[in-house]
């Protein structure tokens, strides 16, 4: 029971981190970034390559963050910026295109068998040698800590700093915020960089949990989180984050508690739950009753 709860908490934290990253970009750009998983994949491959070269762990870590942030900025400048006023379907398909492009590049460069990343191997050890916490690994604690730090840090930034105020204003009504003197490019760039930082953190955590990095790394997780943020409610950062967290918890509990011959149908159960929630609360599970629909007129 405790084990199930801890597993659920760990997966929930990782998904919450991803949800914050996706929600931040959605807030300022109204863009659902399908290519977010490929950012994580790129970070994971950079960890694999650098650790294979025998780089020290801190250097791999720095490279991973640099690669992911650079890639997210490149995406912003090359695709998101020109498409800023395009219809939502066009933006979504464009991120689809980037996702497949990045995955194909990884496939070309590293092959479908992938690479093994060995970074911070000590973190995969159990917390205790024996007894109740024998199957709790350090990385679980790191994941939960990261999740808490990210959520608290972002809340402080959004509530207490002027750039956070700009970001909230842009998320609420982008055009009015610009009229009132919010520097659009600065706010968007900051959101994109922050979401890149989160993607890099997620790729480190995921790599420690599953060291084998393949081109479809984190793809399933991204799909589930994308679904989760919409279920939670995308027009507020905290509802999106809660959505990501809850779908992580739900997935983990389904995985642990379904009978063995039904575990292959975990996704079906999660998606059925998603459909049920969406039908009951189309604006988001955690959205306040007064919430307006997400689309801009």
């Amino acid at each position: 029971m405790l084990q199930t709860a801890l597993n659920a908490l760990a997966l929930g934290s990782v998904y919450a981190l991803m949800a914050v990253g996706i929600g931040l970009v959605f807030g300022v750009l109204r863009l659902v970034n399908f290519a977010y998983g490929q950012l994580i994949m790129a970070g994971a491959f950079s960890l694999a390559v650098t650790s294979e070269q025998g780089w020290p762990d801190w250097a791999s870590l720095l490279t991973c963050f640099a690669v992911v942030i650079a890639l997210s900025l490149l995406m912003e400048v090359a695709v998101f910026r020109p498409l800023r006023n395009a219809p939502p379907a066009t933006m979504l398909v464009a991120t689809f295109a980037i996702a497949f492009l990045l995955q194909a590049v990884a496939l070309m460069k590293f092959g479908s068998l992938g690479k093994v990343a060995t970074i911070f191997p000590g973190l995969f050890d159990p917390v205790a040698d024996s007894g109740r916490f024998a199957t709790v690994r350090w990385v679980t604690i790191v994941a939960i800590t990261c999740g808490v730090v990210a959520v608290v840090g972002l809340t402080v930034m959004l509530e207490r700093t002027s750039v956070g105020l700009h970001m909230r204003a842009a998320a609420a009504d982008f055009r009015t915020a610009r009229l009132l003197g919010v520097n659009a490019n600065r706010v968007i760039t900051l959101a994109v960089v922050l979401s890149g930082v989160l993607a890099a953190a997620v790729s480190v955590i995921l790599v420690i949990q599953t060291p084998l990095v393949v081109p479809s790394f984190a793809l399933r997780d991204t799909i589930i989180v994308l679904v989760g943020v919409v279920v939670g409610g995308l027009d507020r950062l905290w509802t999106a984050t809660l959505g990501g967290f809850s779908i992580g918890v739900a997935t983990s509990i389904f995985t642990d508690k379904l009978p063995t011959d039904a575990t292959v149908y975990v996704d079906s159960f999660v998606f059925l739950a998603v459909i049920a929630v969406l039908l009951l609360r189309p604006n988001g599970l955690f959205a306040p009753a007064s919430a307006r629909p997400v689309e801009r007129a």
Partner: protein
Amino acid sequence: MNLANRLVGLVVPLLLVLAVTGLGSLASSSNEIYFLTALVDVVIVVGLYVFVGNSGVLSFGQMSFVAVGAFAAGLLTIPPGVKRNILPDLFPFLERHSTGNLVSLLLAAALGAVFALLVGLPLMRLSGLAAGIATFAVLGITHNVLLYYEKIGPGPGTMTSIPETTGLVQAMWGALVAILVAWLYQLSRQGRLLRATREDAAVAQAVGVSVHRQRLWAFGLSGAICGFGGGLLVHQLGTITAEQLYLELTFLTLAMLVVGGTNSLLGAVVGALLVSGLDSFLVNAETGVHVLGLTVDVPTGASTVVLGALMALILVLRPSGITGGREARLPRWWPRRAEGAP
């Protein structure tokens, strides 16, 4: 907006299909497959367009109707004796019965329609992102079940020994029928009502249009065309896996629609033919291809990279698609009756 213009909107897509068929019949037998693929893609993308284009609601679920149609049409045309050997876990009635090519296609369409109507009944209340994600969840479930449930298909394996009955002529007829049905629908009262809800759902509702009912009709019709397309596809390939009918094809067909122009039938057809052709050319180029006396040689795996980049580029340059979401019309110099004449 007179009848002649409407007819041009039908005739131009039909002529495009005929032209591609003509080119395909001239091509060598090894190249014919690319034209075949393009025509089958037209059917699926037109199916997608009937719902997404007319309603303005993005759906990722249409591939599940293609998948259901493909699995049904495939299962029903494998001879019973062969089926017993290659798919031993099937439900007995699926194992015993088989039908011909045409019946299997009609059944695929009917199954697609029924599935779409059942799913649409609750889901069509949603719009915007919620609708997109809910339809995606449907696709996720369909894929998950087809991938593991061995009583209705090959499970994680491959369904083989399906008769390859989709030749150039059958693919052409399929595309022509799909376009005609889509055109008739968008000209009908139902189609116009749905497009009214696309332009402004609140106003349409205020004048008495049931958004839910109109979307549901289109979803069902779209499911039928998609199921039909799945049947054509499986009879073209001869083998099928659940993985082939999931994310990549969803992405590719949606991209075809958006690249062509989401809001017009012409856009659906042009996008399908163009992107499909491009895809085939690039895959071919990986083994070296000759264009205008030059040998274009692309490293293996590069086709997806180039395709992704090209599509992103087209979308950046023309966010509303190549056709801009407009139907084919008579040229400006064509003589016409005065506007507003009774």
